[in-house]
């Protein structure tokens, strides 16, 4: 579907770079020192995993303009692939496992992407549901995939790279952070590369793109592959670093929608959008409920609290969109522009 939303190119650059470096410094330097295990285990790790998933989907939906509701399925493919690889190829080093898992997810993505050569907008979106439900079904049905564990739930292996173990709260955080950082750099290079430009070209005007010589079909499938690759690895993080168990239910349709909404609210066609969106959809609700508990006390009925928080979140979403339909990223840029003096 056509989304007339500006992409990075129309955004500040130099300031951005500086900011990113600062963020990395904090994430690697400060946070591990001061962070509590709750911060790592319950906020940052899931935040990173879903932000990464958002990043992946953004390549597809934000840049190439192809709506997908199958993200959770690709996360699942990644997670189960990684599980089986580490189970059946014990010698395989973790990084290789993750890479391969990503590639498997990518190939799944290519298959799932074929309809995109023909379908548009919500028609495409709903067709990706076929993938979503099929994968869920297959994982639930094919016992071999979950090592025939009676309940179909499997525990993830430990995070050990070259003997050094990431198996504590901080370790898992740093592990996720590193993977996310690497893939973000990759994505960043991609969107600024000619290929990235082609993605947007296809989104903005497919015919014109074809006329100037963009290989439309190839590029669309490529978008699916790259996107699923990243989303798949996000799935690995979700299962290995965050939950540390893998069960199909964790990768259901709600997750797919959650990721899509992360991308939209964050800002389609912007990399930082994925992170802002994840912050909004993942961290904000936690903060809200903590706030609620703080205000109303431990004893207060958690159900009521939850519902109030729902309403607040929903209202916030609408408010943000009205203020800036292009999402949080654009909102920030606007604020940024206000502050920085007009030259």
């Amino acid at each position, binding site marked *: 579907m056509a*989304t*007339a*939303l*500006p*992409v990075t*190119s*129309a955004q500040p650059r130099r300031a951005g770079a500086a900011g990113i470096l600062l963020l990395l410094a904090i994430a690697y330097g400060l946070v591990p020192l001061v962070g509590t295990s709750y911060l790592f285990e319950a906020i940052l790790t899931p935040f990173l995993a879903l932000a990464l998933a958002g990043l992946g989907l953004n390549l597809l939906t934000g840049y190439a303009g192809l709506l997908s509701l199958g993200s959770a399925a690709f996360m699942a493919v990644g997670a189960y692939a990684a599980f089986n690889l580490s189970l059946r190829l014990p010698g395989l080093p973790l990084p290789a496992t993750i890479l391969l898992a990503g590639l498997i997810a990518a190939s799944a993505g290519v298959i799932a992407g074929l309809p995109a050569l023909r379908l548009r907008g919500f028609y495409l979106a709903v067709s990706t549901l076929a993938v979503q439900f099929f994968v869920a079904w297959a994982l639930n049905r094919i016992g071999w995939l979950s090592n025939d564990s009676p309940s179909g739930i499997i525990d993830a292996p430990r995070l050990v790279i070259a003997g050094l173990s990431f198996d504590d709260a901080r370790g898992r955080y740093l592990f996720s952070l590193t993977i996310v950082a690497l893939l973000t750099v*990759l994505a960043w*290079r*991609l969107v600024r*590369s*000619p*290929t990235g*430009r*082609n993605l*947007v*070209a296809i*989104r*903005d*005007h497919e*015919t*014109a*793109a*074809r*006329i*100037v*010589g*963009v*290989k*439309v079909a190839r590029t669309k499938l*490529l978008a699916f592959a790259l996107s699923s690759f990243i989303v798949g690895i996000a799935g690995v993080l979700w299962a290995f670093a965050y939950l540390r168990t893998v069960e199909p239910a964790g990768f259901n349709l709600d997750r797919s929608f959650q990721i899509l909404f992360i991308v939209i609210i964050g800002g389609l*066609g912007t990399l930082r959008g994925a992170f802002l969106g994840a912050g909004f959809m993942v961290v904000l609700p936690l903060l809200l409920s903590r706030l609620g508990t703080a205000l109303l006390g431990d004893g207060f009925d958690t159900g009521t609290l939850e519902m109030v928080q729902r309403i607040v979140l929903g209202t916030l979403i609408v408010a943000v969109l009205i203020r800036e339909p292009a999402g949080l990223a654009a909102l920030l840029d606007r604020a940024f522009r206000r502050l920085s003096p007009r030259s």
Partner: protein
Amino acid sequence: MVAGDEDILAVEGLSLSFGGAVAFAEIDLSVAAGEIHAIIGPNGAGKSSLINAITGLYAPQAGRLRIGDARFARVPARRLAELGVARTFQNLALFKSLSVVENVLSGLANVQRAGLTAQLLGLSAARREATEHRARAESVIDFLQLGMFRGRAAGSLPYGLQKRVELARALVANPRLLLLDEPMAGMSAAEKAEMSGFVLAAREMLGTAIVLIEHDIGVVMRLSDRITVLDHGRRIATGTPHEIQANPAVIAAYLGAEDDPENEAKAA
């Protein structure tokens, strides 16, 4: 001019109709290298359709085409760029959210060689290519005096400038054949004069053959070497500007009222 082997585009007996409605029928058209060939005619005469057929967006039912020395019944749109053909669109077809520079760069999509990995890892091959392409894009941007809009999202530019960006995107690939569908619609006389300048310059510098659809008869007369006139999908005349201006059929079908409004613009 003599039509012949140095023709870069040759259209023979091309016909296209939608359901019952004839878009155009039995069109013959030849464009020599470096020629500016205007196509004029009333609204709905079939001009854009003809260009769409030449660029493979429409599939003609009869007739054949030659571009360079490649012959087709139906031109494969995806091979157009490598055939050295570029075009602009009547209703803008820019990549709205991309900046002006990126729009122009995308005009080079076809000559993009470096593979994805090379791009991602920033291998020297990719970097060299990138810088080279950027240079080409910038030169076109300067040439079309779009410098001060370089960074702006194309979609937020005023209509007239968007048309100009589209021309830049088409020119950057140094096409052998350039098809312009009403490139000056919605421009002031001054801007039209400017655009005309660019079109001529492009022909001079790149030796590009240009097919030009335009309703401003003044502009057409000034720019074109030859003019083909369509009416209700038929070619009713081909000739030099003077021949055409004198042609009663054309006057009846198209130019109409003896003093056409744009004559003064022509004076400017």
